[in-house]
């Protein structure tokens, strides 16, 4: 019994310590961001590996999610004779929820895990200490550009996801199921507000990009420098990111759309 309480206590202390380290790490990254504007090519390089390489999975998933929404939405709406509202249903679900959330989950799986593994391996092969000994701060030189790249890429990926999804739903709704294209777009335009829906979706995706990249980089930097340690850190990145995305999504949704 005492042992149980003790291990609970140790777990709690460990968790708090990690949280503290994570926040110090974040401060250190943020301090390195102004310097990046002088060397933006470092960020561009990372936007390639973080953003461009995630593009394919985002495009394909976006298209299919949109097509499924088109089918499901049509089948539900047609019972009420409201299939013209398909555009609204699709656009609101994608722009407000599915776009930011699903693309962030995919981003965590594709780019987040890769970041953790990369940083963890750099640590275990002493590349990070090597840099320190060359008087180069690895957090500014290696971590901050990746953080910035995640922050830039995530909203773009989410926007692409939503746009492709809406096109997918249109292809199914109009091409396959014969929903009037004018009604599809005009109802969508009538009911989707730029500030309330689109901008809030963008804000969500910026927050998710921030959190996922932060978790991924911290897990890599904090990994035990062995192959097992890096493997575990990679898993933790995906799991913790998923929790963070879903939890924050609830909070943000409540804040943004709660008082309508």
């Amino acid at each position, binding site marked *: 019994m005492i042992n149980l309480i003790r291990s609970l206590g140790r777990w709690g202390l460990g968790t708090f310590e990690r949280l503290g380290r994570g926040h110090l790490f974040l401060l250190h990254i943020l301090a390195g961001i102004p310097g990046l504007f002088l060397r933006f090519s470092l960020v561009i*390089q990372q936007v390639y590996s973080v953003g461009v390489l995630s593009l394919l999975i985002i495009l394909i998933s976006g298209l299919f999610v949109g097509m499924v929404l088109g089918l499901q939405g049509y089948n539900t709406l047609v019972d009420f*004779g409201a299939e013209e509202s398909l555009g609204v249903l699709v656009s609101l679900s994608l722009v407000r929820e599915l776009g930011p959330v699903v693309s962030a989950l995919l981003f965590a799986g594709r780019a987040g895990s890769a970041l953790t593994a990369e940083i963890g391996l750099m640590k275990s092969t002493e590349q990070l200490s090597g840099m320190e000994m060359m008087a180069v701060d690895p957090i500014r030189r290696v971590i901050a550009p990746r953080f910035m790249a995640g922050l830039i890429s995530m909203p773009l990926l989410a926007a692409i996801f939503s746009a492709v999804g809406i096109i997918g739903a249109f292809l199914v709704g109009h091409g396959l199921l014969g929903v009037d294209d004018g009604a599809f777009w005009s109802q969508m335009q009538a009911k989707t*507000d730029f500030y309330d829906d689109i901008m809030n979706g963008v804000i969500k995706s910026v927050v998710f990009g921030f959190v996922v990249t932060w978790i991924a980089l911290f897990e890599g930097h904090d990994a035990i420098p062995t192959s097992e340690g890096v493997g575990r850190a990679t898993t933790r990145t995906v799991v913790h990111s998923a929790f963070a995305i879903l939890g924050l999504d609830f909070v943000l949704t409540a804040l943004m759309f709660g008082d309508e």
Partner: protein
Amino acid sequence: MMQNKSTEIIVGMFVAAGIAALFMLAMKVSNLGDFTDEAGYQVTAEFENIGGLKVRAPVTMAGVRVGRVSSINLDPTTYNAEVTINMYSQFDNIPYDTSASIYTAGLLGEQYIGLVAGAEEEFLQDGDVIDLTQPALVLEQVIGQFLYSKAEGEE
């Protein structure tokens, strides 16, 4: 260095694609695009009851969108709803005696204004008033009337 340059180009295309997607969401998906076709002329119509009509609801003629509701007010003397419609400028040959009715798209859909063309030679102009209007059907009233007439018939 060569590789560096092609990376920059690809990243540039990625960012452009992302911004294009955002632009599409703003212009094609959301109502932001509507503010661009604001240019037009204003006419007003008075309705006894507008039901659930909202600002920015579409105004159509024969199913074609010809304008948009730009504001809704209560007339202080008649206690009717005074709806201002922003008509798109390319539809400048709408007869003066056109009538306006409030319809519902589908059973549960949004409400919109449908115009039916009249026969006058003169056209609607900025500041004109549409006199012939038909109020929105309010479901409760319709059901109430139906029950009432049914009860009367049974007597």
